[in-house]
C-alpha cells in the first residue's frame, strides 16, 4: 500500500516486480500490507460509505436550461454592445462586455456538459 500526499510528490521508482515500495526506505520485500495501512484503507473505505454522496453545486438537470438562458443573454448583450455609442471612457461598453463575458463563460461550461463533454 502506498499513501501518497501532495500533488508535487516526485516520481516513484519501481524497484522490483513484486516490491512494496516504501519511499522512505530502501528495504524492499513483498509483504502483506502492514496492519496500520490495512486500517487506513479499511477506515477510508468505511468513511467513504458513511459520508453523503457527492452533490454538484448546480444540479446536472439544470445545466441545459442554464446553457440556453446564459448563452441567449450573452447573444443579446453582444448585440446591445454593438449598438452602444463610442465614447472616450467606455464605461458602459466595459460593463456590458464584462457581464456578457461572465454569462457566456458559464454558459459555455454548461453547454459543454450538456453536450456530453464533462469538463
Amino acid at each position, binding site marked *: 500500500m502506498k499513501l501518497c500526499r501532495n500533488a508535487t510528490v516526485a516520481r516513484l521508482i519501481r524497484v522490483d516486480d513484486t516490491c512494496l515500495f516504501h519511499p522512505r526506505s530502501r528495504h524492499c520485500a513483498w509483504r502483506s*500490507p502492514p496492519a496500520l495501512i490495512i486500517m487506513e484503507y479499511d477506515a477510508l473505505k468505511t468513511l467513504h460509505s458513511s459520508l453523503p*454522496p457527492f452533490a454538484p453545486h448546480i444540479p446536472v438537470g439544470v445545466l441545459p436550461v442554464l446553457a440556453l438562458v446564459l448563452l441567449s443573454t450573452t447573444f443579446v448583450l453582444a448585440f446591445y454592445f454593438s449598438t452602444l455609442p463610442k465614447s472616450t471612457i467606455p464605461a458602459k*461598453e466595459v460593463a456590458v462586455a464584462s457581464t456578457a*463575458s*461572465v454569462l457566456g463563460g458559464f454558459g459555455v*461550461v454548461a453547454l459543454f456538459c450538456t453536450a456530453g463533454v464533462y469538463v
Partner: protein
Amino acid sequence: MSLKWASVPLFLLLSITSGLCGASSFENTAVVRTVELGGSVVHVTTTYAIRALENNLKTYTIALGKEDRAKTSWVEVKVKGQDNTLPFTERVEKHLSLFDVTLPKPLSGNKTLNIVFENIQTHATTPWPQTAAQNEDQALKYTTDLFVLSPYSTLVQRTKLRALTPRFISWAEPQGIDAFVGDAAVTKNGANVVYGPYKDVPPSTLDNFLEKYQQPVTVHYFHEQPVLEVRKLNRAVEISHWGANINIQDDISLYNAGPKLKGHFSRIEHQMQGYNKKGAPHVLPALTLGLPPGIRNTYYYDTIGNVSTSKLRVAPLPPKGAQRSQYSILELRPRYPLLGGWNYSFTLGWDAPLESSASYDKKTGTYIVAIPILTPIPGAVITDEELKIILPEGATDVSYVTPFPALSAVMGTHVTFLDTVGRPSITLRYKNLTLKHAQEIYVTYKVSTLAHIKKGLTVATALFTLFVLAGVARRLDFSINRKKKVQ
C-alpha cells in the same frame, strides 16, 4: 508405513538437521494442496493443518519454490473458515520464498489450527501442441513441484490437480519416492489427478530433501475455454464536478494465448460451428463483461471505428453505500473471432454519475472517490496495466490508498478541454492482475469554490478579450472612400 532401509540414514540426517534448524516448532498433521487448472490463471489453495510443538508460537512459515513464486501474482492467508486475512512478510532464502504468517493468537503446545494459503498463478500453463487447427481441441500443460514445501515435518500431504473436464492426456509418474508412498504415488479420479497421500515427509525445504526427492510434475489436459490474456490495459478515469460525472475508458489489447492457428481461417467452418453450437474451445467469438450499475453513454470502438455488435443491459444504480449485487451486462462481439495467437485491440468506455463513486466530507471539505482498478474478464490475466486517475482542475491535498501495492506511481498533470493549468493526475502501473485484483482505490482531494468557478472565468476572460478587440475595431475606420467624405 514400511521404511526402505536405504533411506534410514537420510531420514536420521534430515531429522537431526531439522532439529538444529528450529523446524520443530510446528508439525503439519496434514497438508492438502488443490490446484484448479485453468488457462491464463491457475488457482492454488493449500490447507495446512498445523500442531504447535512449543508454547507461545506467533509465527508460522510457509514456503514456495522459486518457479512457483515467479508465477504467483496474488497471495492471501486466512484461518480456515474465517474471512479476515492474516498478515505476513516475505523473505527470500537461497532459492525459496518464505512467508512468515502472524497467527491471530499465539499458539500454545499441542494446539492445532488450520491455515489456508491461497495463491493465484498467471502465465503458468503452456499450450501443447503449440498449434491447433480451427476444429481441433486445445490442450495445455501445467508443471509444479511434487512435494508441498514446508520447513516443518508433515505427517501426510497430497496434491490434487483439478481440471474443468475429466480429460487428461497424461500426467507425470513420480520416481524415487517409495519411502513416502502408501498405495499409489499418483491416481486419477474423474477430473482430478491426485499425487499422494505421502506420509511422514520430513521438512521439505532442506537441501538434502530437495536434491533427492523434489521433482517437477507435469499434467497435460484438455481445456474447454479460450486462454485469454490482456497484454496491455490503459485505463483512464476522469472526474468532472461540473458535469457530476465519472468517465472510465479502457484501451484493451486482447490476445488469445491458446495454441496458434494451424493452417488458414475458414469462415465457413466457423459459421458451421456456430450453427451447430459446437464452437472450438480455443476460439473466442464473444465476450461478456460485468460493468458497474447505473452507467450511461457506453461506447465500444476499435481502430476501424464503432463496433455495433454489442448488447448492454444496464442494472439500476443502488443507493450509495448499499452493496452492489447487480452489474450491467455487456455482451460484446469483436469484429472477428479471436483464434489462437490473434490480437484484438479495442476501446471501451462509459460514463457514470459521480455520486455513485464519490462522497463529500463537509467537516474537512474533502472529496473521497472510489476508483475501480479494472473490469474483470473471467479467466483472463491482465499482464500490464496503466491506470490514470484525472482529478478536477484545481484539486489540492491529493492522496490515495490502494488495496495492494502498485509497481510505480507518478503524479502529473493532464490538460483537456477548457483547462488552464491542467488537472492533477495519478498514474499507477500494475502487472499480472486477475479477478482477485478487481478492487478499488480511494482517492481524497479538495477543490475550493474558486477552483470550481475558475473554468467559467477562464472562458469569460477569452470572451472579454473578443469584446475588447471588437471595441477597438469599432473605433477604427476601414472605409475606402474617406477622402470623398471629407470633401
